[in-house]
């Protein structure tokens, strides 16, 4: 093969390799999956009002215990199925973790009717205009965020969480930061 032919062949091979890499990267992921950019970063601070007492809750004052934030709305069907899972986890593990529900794009009246009697182990917070939800990169409900004791956002579950996943994520929150599971919608 001549030198020129060799160069042309190598160039074509290089372009094809780059093209294949780009295609593999593109086809290898779900185009509807919204990336979770805040993983491993400090959780955005917030001050929200408790739905039951009206008292403000500030994230910056909650450090020291891992936090579970569950975003929900009364108009969201999957949230109804998920709600007992989070409520039971809050009652069982409330000594070691702090659980909060965050009302997303809902009226307070509907949220109160949905949540039922106030549960001190799982306080519900009102997020006016969903400012805090967008700060966290929420794309819809239900979504559950896991923040470690140092205030670092460790993981997110963007589907109705089941008891097994909840247990796994809670256990991971107690572990040192490392590779975390992928988010699946």
């Amino acid at each position, binding site marked *: 093969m001549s030198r020129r032919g060799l160069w042309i062949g190598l160039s074509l091979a290089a372009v094809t390799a780059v093209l294949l890499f780009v295609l593999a990267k593109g086809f290898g992921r779900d185009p509807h999956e919204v*990336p979770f950019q805040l993983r491993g970063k400090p959780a955005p601070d917030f001050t929200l009002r408790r739905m039951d007492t009206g008292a403000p809750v500030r994230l910056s004052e909650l450090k020291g215990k891992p936090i579970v934030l569950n975003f929900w709305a009364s108009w969201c069907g999957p949230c109804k199925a998920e709600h007992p899972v989070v409520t039971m986890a809050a009652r069982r593990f409330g000594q070691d973790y702090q659980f909060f529900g965050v009302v997303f794009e809902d009226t307070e009246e509907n949220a109160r009717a949905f949540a039922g009697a106030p549960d001190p182990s799982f306080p519900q917070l009102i997020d006016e205009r969903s400012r805090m939800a967008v700060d966290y990169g929420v794309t819809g409900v239900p979504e559950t965020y896991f923040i470690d004791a140092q205030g670092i956002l460790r993981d997110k579950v963007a589907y109705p969480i089941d008891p097994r996943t909840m247990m796994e994520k809670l256990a991971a929150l107690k572990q040192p930061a490392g590779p975390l599971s992928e988010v699946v919608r």
Partner: protein
Amino acid sequence: MTAWVLGLVLASYAPQQAGSALLDPAREARVQALGKQLRCPMCQGLSIADSSSSAARAQMDKVRELVADGKSDPEIRDYFTSRYGEWALLDPPASGMNLLVWLLPLALLVGGGFAIARTMRRPVPAAEAPAPPTEAERPPSDDPYLEAVRAELRR
């Protein structure tokens, strides 16, 4: 079952909160222009300005809040990309991996055009196939019909 399916649908498209109040016309135009550049997380290829989903409405409220706070357009785009990645932009910038997507087809086009141009400019080799033998060179045939035709053609 019906309630479950309805719930799934409504989970995406039934906001119960009204959107925030519009700003003055000039700033609201900026809000709408920025909203057109940001991808709705619950929709298929729609901007948050064009979607009525709850998530899009919440994001439009955030855009409005940031514009009201005096943030610049790049700052507002950065706010969303820092949370949702470049996925949030309907028209991602041509940099990094995105640059490859823009440049590769161009490189292939230029390379292909170059190859075609070279092929077109190359002189066509003179009759590579052997020329048909002349009448004089042809060996005489045993076929009387063929010989008669040749004799006729020579006349």
